């Protein structure tokens, strides 16, 4: 058992893995005790002699004592199991109420923020001037602007503020209220803003707001380009047997490294595929060579046409996957957006979706697709996707596994800016999930086992690169395949249409 917190999967309860495990053990025990009491009442256990004939020391006397103790134990076990189930339901109710309250409060604050935009612009200019003066003073002390910047970054790292669950929750709320701020800035009345909000209508939310950000970013920033993809390695490996194996197989992020791993499993009628997509490599918002960049992140959250998703679909097609083939999609960080896009737009028979530390809480996933999302509580990146969908909008279908990794005895390391987001933390969490007996996680593990069938897969690693308008046709790593162009934000090509349809 572990400190995992599980919710969703069609259930309204929320509880730690340990608490839910206690409930299952006690409920099973109550059932067994019922059976054993019935056995003890059978003639084989208490035969022939009636109580007036019993004497001290007769087996019937001891059996009566045992039966009485078992009856009391059965009632207690059943009562404890019910209390734990009620506690988990109460936890779930409270969490949903807090989420509703927080969403409404964020929406109102966002709207006020948007409404007061002209004043804020002045305040912002004053703040920038003040920060500039402060930075100048710091530079006078440190000797160079670079040293000042490094000092500031080190101060933020040491404070650990970016790994604080409160900060993460604040960012989640802020991201969720961007749409309301936009409507406030457009001087729409608050009731109209709340009515249009995605939580109420599904019309205008984080997804639409991200789309507007892409539109307002100008002709160069956050704009998609065609991508090339090529197979760069074909290692051999056995198939995964659980969440830990899935997390370990995700390609590690690195400049020039492969971003996609594809495993092909033989099937009777059709092959089966597992596709793994890695995390963001380039944090720039102006596109360069790397498709796993922030342009893809924002395009992905806007559910447009991120280059990383197009590259992954193209890699799947190049590997031989055809529409209707069963595909299990796995992703870490931005890879989770990619995996969700493959599920939504790939045209495959979706065997499941597993995401680690991904900002996909608001993204639509077709109903019925087994969907497990893993989040470290102190990780800022999943919060950038905003508040997850609520119960009324399919939010309960996703199994959400959360785990806190820092406390006062184990503070976040000050050597990294976002230590909670490390893939290692997710791999460790995934191994804890493998040890859980929760039926939702056990069911997904069973599904993975059935999917691979214990077969040794054909493995391929794929590297994608963006093709800028100036350098079309000359990418370093990917000369083998034609470019896959964006369907939005660029000129649609037949390849992009094919990729989106999964052909």
């Amino acid at each position, binding site marked *: 058992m572990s400190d995992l917190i599980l919710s969703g999967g069609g259930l309204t309860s929320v509880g730690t893995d340990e608490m839910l495990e206690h409930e299952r053990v006690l409920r099973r*025990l109550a059932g067994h005790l019922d059976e*054993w009491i019935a*056995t003890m009442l059978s003639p084989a256990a208490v*035969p022939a002699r009636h109580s007036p004939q019993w004497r001290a*020391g*007769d087996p019937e*006397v001891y059996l009566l004592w045992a039966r009485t103790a078992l009856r009391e134990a059965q009632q207690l076990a059943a009562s*404890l199991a019910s209390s734990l189930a009620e*506690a988990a339901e109460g936890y779930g109710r409270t969490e949903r109420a807090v989420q509703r309250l927080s969403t409404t409060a964020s929406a109102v604050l966002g709207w006020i923020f948007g409404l007061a935009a002209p004043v804020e612009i002045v305040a912002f200019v004053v703040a920038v001037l003040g920060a500039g003066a402060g930075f100048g003073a710091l530079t006078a002390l440190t000797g160079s602007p670079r040293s000042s910047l490094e000092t500031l970054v080190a101060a933020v790292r040491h404070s650990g503020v970016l790994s604080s669950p409160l900060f993460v929750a604040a960012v989640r709320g802020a991201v969720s209220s961007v749409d309301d701020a936009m409507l406030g800035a457009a001087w729409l009345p608050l009731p109209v803003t709340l009515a249009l909000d995605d939580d109420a209508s599904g019309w205008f939310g984080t997804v639409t707001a991200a789309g507007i950000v892409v539109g307002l970013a100008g002709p160069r920033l956050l704009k998609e380009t065609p991508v090339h993809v090529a197979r760069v390695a074909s290692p051999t490996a056995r198939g995964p047997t659980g969440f830990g194996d899935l997390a370990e197989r995700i390609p590690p992020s690195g400049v020039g490294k492969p971003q996609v791993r594809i495993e092909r499993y033989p099937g009777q009628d059709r092959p089966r595929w597992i596709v793994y997509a890695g995390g963001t490599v380039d944090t720039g918002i102006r596109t360069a060579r790397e498709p796993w960049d922030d342009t893809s992140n924002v395009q992905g959250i806007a559910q447009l046409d991120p280059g990383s998703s197009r590259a992954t679909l193209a890699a799947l097609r190049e590997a031989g996957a055809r529409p209707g083939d069963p595909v299990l999609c796995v992703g870490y960080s931005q890879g989770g957006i990619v995996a969700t896009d493959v599920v939504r737009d790939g045209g495959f028979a979706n065997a499941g979706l597993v995401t680690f530390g991904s900002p996909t809480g608001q993204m639509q996933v077709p109903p019925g697709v087994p969907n497990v999302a893993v989040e470290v509580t102190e990780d800022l990146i999943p919060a950038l996707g905003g508040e997850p969908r609520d119960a009324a909008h399919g939010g309960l279908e996703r199994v959400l596994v959360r785990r806190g990794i820092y406390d006062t005895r184990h503070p976040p390391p000050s050597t990294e800016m976002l230590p909670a987001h490390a893939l290692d933390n997710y791999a460790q969490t995934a191994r804890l999930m493998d040890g859980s007996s929760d039926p939702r996680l056990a069911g997904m593990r069973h599904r993975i086992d059935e999917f691979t069938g214990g077969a040794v897969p054909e493995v391929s690693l794929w590297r994608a690169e963006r093709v800028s308008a100036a350098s079309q046709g000359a990418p370093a790593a990917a000369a083998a395949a034609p470019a896959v162009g964006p369907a939005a934000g660029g000129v649609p090509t037949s390849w992009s249409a094919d990729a989106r349809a999964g052909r």
Partner: protein
Amino acid sequence: MNQGDDYVGDLLQVADLDESERLRRQRATVRRLMLQLQAAIALLPSDAGTFWRSEAHRAYARRLQDLRRMLVHANASLREADSSIDAALLALSCRGPAP
């Protein structure tokens, strides 16, 4: 046939048995129950876990200990019943077959 018929059938069947056979069957049932109960005690959470830090959690911990005590008590009673059946069987064998 309903459960009541099963029970009456069992009762008639058991009534037909001689004393030593009845005791041996009783002992087998008791021993099977003891094994199952011991397995259940081993599977019971050893403590109340770490998922709460409140009065409710402490109350849960106490009730869990109560439950363990009840099961251990039931198991001890079954062990006594087993010894008692052994003693009854020994007494029967010393008496020898009925004339």
